[in-house]
């Protein structure tokens, strides 16, 4: 797994719902969905901006191969253009996509629970599982309780709105930069 994420740093582990919300091309009409969309878009931009400044081999965001591939397949569609394929490659290179035999037979949900647990247990990372599915906490509890009825989820599971608040507190300068770029995009749109 990642070789040189700085100790005690927050890292994000991304679920499928996050990708779906962040890369939804058009503004949703429903106000609640709109709020999730804007926060997901903000968090995705921050991940890209942060990764763009990290040295090679260091990562701020993680996901599993099955989660990423599932998103990429839907995003690309049947006959993707070269630019669309490049976009997926760029996103792939903006995070650590964890593959390998240990994860390959797990469900999408279980694969990200495992990644969070390993990041938390092997080091001083502070993983946050990012999911916009409210039942993710119940699913994680069920995953842990399969082996130990008293086990507790050792990392927070947050939706994009909650993660945006955490990131704004933790990385104010980079968040201001993301805000400025978002404003520039809106002006041009």
């Amino acid at each position, binding site marked *: 797994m990642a070789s040189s994420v700085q100790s005690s740093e927050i890292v994000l582990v991304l679920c499928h719902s996050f990708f779906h919300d*962040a*890369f939804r*091309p*058009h503004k949703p009409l429903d106000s609640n969905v709109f709020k999730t969309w804007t926060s997901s*878009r903000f968090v*995705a*931009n921050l991940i*890209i*901006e942060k*990764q*763009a*400044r990290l*040295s090679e081999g260091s990562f701020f965001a993680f996901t599993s191969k099955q989660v990423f591939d599932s998103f990429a397949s839907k995003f690309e569609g049947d006959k993707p*253009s070269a*630019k*669309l394929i*490049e*976009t997926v*490659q*760029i*996103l792939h*290179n*903006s995070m650590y996509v964890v593959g390998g035999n240990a994860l390959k037979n797990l469900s999408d949900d279980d694969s990200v629970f495992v990644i969070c647990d390993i990041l938390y247990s092997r080091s001083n990372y502070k993983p946050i599982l990012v999911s916009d599915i409210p039942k993710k906490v119940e699913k994680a509890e069920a995953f842990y309780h399969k082996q130990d009825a008293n086990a507790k989820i050792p990392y927070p599971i947050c939706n994009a709105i909650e993660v945006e608040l955490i990131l704004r507190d933790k990385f104010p300068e980079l968040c201001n*930069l*993301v805000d400025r*770029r*978002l404003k*520039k*995009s809106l002006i*041009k*749109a």
Partner: protein
Amino acid sequence: MPRKREKGEREMSADIRIRAVKVLHGRAKEEAMKQGLKSDDIVIVKTTVNSLPEYSVEKIEGDPVSYLLKRAGKT
């Protein structure tokens, strides 16, 4: 500008990723400087390798997600 490939010459490998201009070095940095980019700008760096790597640098305008979606024809 990247060298135009001759007919039949196969691209051996390519990498594409987003980097901040401030962390670029060498010829990739030179390419960004030629375009008059600032250190806070972020760019798509495409690296193709035939013998000596070639770097193309594309400035991202606005926020990266919107730029990527537009670039891919999704918006």
